[in-house]
């Protein structure tokens, strides 16, 4: 009977608080993760919006190709009118 009471005391004063502390830790971590995910959403949306201009790279690519072609033609003309070293 004495051991039973000792077991009851241990259960109430040690096991129950430890279980509560551990569960509270898990709950706090989950709440912190939830807040971080909420903060992540607008950032991801803004990053996605910032990348809208990436489509313009295709135009840049075409412009660079045309510019290099013009420079090549201009270089050919320079090659003709300027003397070699």
């Amino acid at each position, binding site marked *: 009977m004495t051991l039973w009471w000792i077991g009851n005391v241990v259960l*109430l004063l040690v*096991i129950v608080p430890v279980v509560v502390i551990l569960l509270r830790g898990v709950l706090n971590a989950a709440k912190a*993760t939830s807040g971080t*995910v909420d903060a992540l959403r607008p950032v991801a949306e803004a990053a*996605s919006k910032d*990348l809208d201009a990436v489509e313009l*790279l*295709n135009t840049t690519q075409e412009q660079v190709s045309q510019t290099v072609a013009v420079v*090549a033609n201009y270089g050919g003309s320079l090659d003709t009118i300027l003397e070699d070293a």
Partner: protein
Amino acid sequence: MEPAAVVTLIAVVLVILALVVYLVAVILELRKITAGLDAVIESVGGIVSKSKPVNGVVESINKDLSAGTDLLEGLLEKKAGKDDAAGLVESVFPGAGAAVLERQGRTGEVKNIDEVYTRGALQLARLGRESPLGAGPVSGAALRDPTNSSTAARSLYSHPGSPVADEPGGPSHQPRSPTIGAEAPADGDSASDKSKASDGE
């Protein structure tokens, strides 16, 4: 029932209650997290799909630009010579002359061109239809004043300053293209204007 059994039952019920309350709260939080991640993953998917073609396009642009750079450097080497080409690039883009030497497969010190590339100025002046410097061939006797040749060359430029200010706190200018030819600005201090004026006298 014995009091010890009652206390044991109460303790066990307390543990189970704590488990239920906290686990339900954790489950609710995890559902919130899942919903949030579902929203985030849409934006992340957008980022991935939008940035997917970037590598290919940028590589293509770099390839075109490299071809243009090679072309212009080749032309510069052909027209100015290897030493002068590196020096000219260095004069316009400080520090880039060494890279030109490296691409030429050479090492050493980059030639110092200074502010005015006399040979280039002479060639450009020769192209000016009304420029007295353009009246004669590049080879042969000197067409410029041998005593004040630097002054004459500098006068071809609309900003005859130097990258270093002439006086403390004074203005500094990078050399500009010579103001010569039929479309040269009328208010420029080009040599051709001065020469025309002197010819008129």
